[in-house]
């Protein structure tokens, strides 16, 4: 083997590079999070329970609306202390949820070990000091560890004999009681039946629709379909490139991951705002111009957010095999994209787009209700004007349109599968 240089260069230790250091910090934070998770879950669970229980008590017993009944700091201290007691001396709900339990090296923790853990948790856990090491200091010093649940050969304990099980049952019971107290009054149930006559005019008009407006309404319906088509089309143009930035498996490394997080975050915010709210925002934005334009913008923004999510999830599920194979032939990055990734996503992308278009047709109607143009705007005008026969005609048209588009999009998508 002469002629070839010998040996190899030993690499720098990971923590001397910026990236290595960053990864070490991230790993530590991740582990601390895993130790903290049961505690935070318990605190949140106990606090929610207290609030619901207080509400129920106040509603039924005091006949008033109240959520705390104690100063907020008393509640906070109470639930934090409660969580620590629960986790130290029992098997808490939070521990169960994350699938961990307190274990000592020799097996079941003894009472004195548990007491030591309880005290140390206050000193190191609450202050955060303990988390400088992994596992945290309070675990090391108490000799107990929040270990992964071990498979047991014993029969499982029934839920009514565990504290976590009883807590869950009480929580559900209180939630139910509170929900009944808020929404269901006897009066309102009675009204549902005794006042049915009030809507009679409306139902009567609905079965005698005014066909004379068919032509105008038809024109508005075309506007609505166009709104949906345009919004979907423009959304695709933006969503396709963005979806690559929102795919976890394609965005790796110190540059890729922050971009991924930013895009995904922005999209989930945009998606959580309903199209009808977007429509109001854009109506204000485009100087309260009552026109389909605001409606299109509203649908466009929401469609982008929705499509990016659907597209990106499809991208994350692609088969890595072809990528590997095409890379191995010596193809460049763009060729790999074109020949290994694109063939796998084209049909699903088209399918998602059709699905979204179908949604947009319905949404375009809703957006119209707040003044975003199209058939929805016509409908709401008739309803405010007590022109129920005309409104009935419009509603029939909407039903027919939605049904037709639904059928069409389903057929097309079935073909693509």
């Amino acid at each position, binding site marked *: *083997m002469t002629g*070839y*240089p010998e*040996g*190899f*260069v*030993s*690499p720098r230790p990971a923590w001397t590079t910026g990236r290595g250091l960053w990864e070490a910090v991230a790993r530590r934070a991740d582990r601390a999070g895993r130790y903290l998770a049961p505690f935070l879950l318990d605190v949140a669970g106990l606090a929610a329970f207290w609030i619901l229980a207080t509400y129920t008590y106040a509603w039924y017993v005091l006949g008033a609306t109240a959520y705390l009944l104690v100063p907020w700091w008393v509640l906070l201290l109470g639930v934090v202390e409660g969580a620590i007691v629960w986790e130290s001396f029992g098997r808490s709900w939070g521990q169960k949820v994350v699938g961990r339990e307190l274990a000592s090296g020799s097996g079941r923790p003894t009472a004195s070990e548990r007491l030591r853990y309880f005290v140390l948790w206050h000193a190191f856990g609450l202050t955060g000091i303990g988390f400088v090491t992994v596992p945290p200091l309070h675990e090391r010093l108490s000799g107990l560890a929040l270990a992964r649940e071990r498979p047991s050969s014993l029969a499982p304990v029934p839920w009514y004999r565990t504290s976590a099980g009883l807590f869950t049952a009480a929580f559900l019971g209180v939630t139910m009681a509170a929900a009944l107290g808020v929404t269901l009054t006897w009066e309102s149930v009675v009204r549902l039946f005794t006042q049915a006559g009030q809507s009679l005019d409306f139902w009567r008009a609905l079965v005698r629709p005014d066909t004379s407006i068919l032509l105008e309404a038809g024109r508005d319906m075309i506007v609505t379909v166009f709104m949906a088509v345009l919004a979907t089309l423009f959304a695709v143009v933006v969503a396709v490139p963005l979806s690559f930035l929102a795919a976890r498996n394609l965005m790796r490394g110190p540059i890729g991951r922050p971009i991924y997080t930013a895009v995904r975050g922005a999209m989930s915010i945009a998606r959580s705002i309903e199209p009808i709210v977007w429509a109001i925002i854009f109506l204000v934005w485009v100087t309260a111009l009552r026109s389909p334009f605001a409606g299109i913008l509203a649908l466009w923004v929401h469609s982008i957010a929705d499509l990016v999510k659907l597209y990106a999830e499809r991208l994350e599920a692609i*088969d890595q*095999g*072809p990528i*590997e*194979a*095409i*890379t*191995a*032939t*010596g*193809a*460049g990055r*763009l*060729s790999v994209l*074109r*020949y*290994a990734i694109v*063939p*796998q996503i*084209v*049909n699903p992308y088209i399918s998602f787009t059709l699905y979204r278009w179908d949604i947009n047709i319905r949404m375009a109607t809703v957006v119209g209700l707040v003044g975003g143009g199209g058939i929805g705007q016509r409908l709401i005008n008739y309803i405010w004007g007590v022109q129920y026969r005309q409104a009935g005609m419009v509603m029939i048209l909407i039903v027919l349109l939605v049904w037709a588009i639904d059928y069409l999009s389903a057929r097309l998508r079935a073909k693509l599968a």
Partner: protein
Amino acid sequence: MANPYLVVDNLTKVYERGQVLALRDLSFSVAKGEFLVVIGLSGSGKSTLLRCINRLIEPTRGRIWLDGTDVTRLSPARMRRVRRKIGMIFQQFNLVDRSTAIGNVLTGRLGYLPGWRALLGWFPKADREKALANLERVGLRDKAYVRVDQLSGGQRQRVGIARALMQDPDLLLADEPVSALDPATSHSVMQYLEQMNRQDGVTVIASLHFLSLARRYGTRIIALKDGQLVFDGPPTAIDNAKFKEIYGEDAEEVEVR
């Protein structure tokens, strides 16, 4: 060995997650025209080794010389030029399912095509003819325009072989090419590899699960265990004791006929 074609020198691969040591200071060399079979248990590092050679996986330490070039030091662009001459076939075939057989075979030419032509899918006529000829060679001329998800396992692997043939390779890496196939089909696929090796003078490095296949087709065998080389020699040199050492005390040899 006067002029080794491929030299692997102190190759080590550590996977960051979980700090798995996949390859440990692995050194061996391969002469031109050899049919080298890599054997070992699942997880012994066979796949990692093959992928380090064409750098689908980046080695952690060590060097790999291919025909006198240190491939571990090449820039991405120059690595792509080297890859053109290294064909690869896979256990799961790694074809694009929604594409036709000829569509898959043509991707073997991507390394030779200017980028803009590749994006337009504008392959030269010569490439198309070559693709049909290679499909003919693996006995799939009549399936050229069939989507590959309609083909059987053996047929799909033959499409994979045709794709590798398109590259006019000097070296073929075969990562458990027959593990997903039944015994009869396995032999048919292995015979195509043997043919490439003997007729076209392609150096073959194949990882295999079955020792009987390794003995039948390999001109030389290396064995890996926990990422280390535990055997390097002719197929006839693996006796029962050596077999137990590679596969563990409880292993029984299974024949594939």
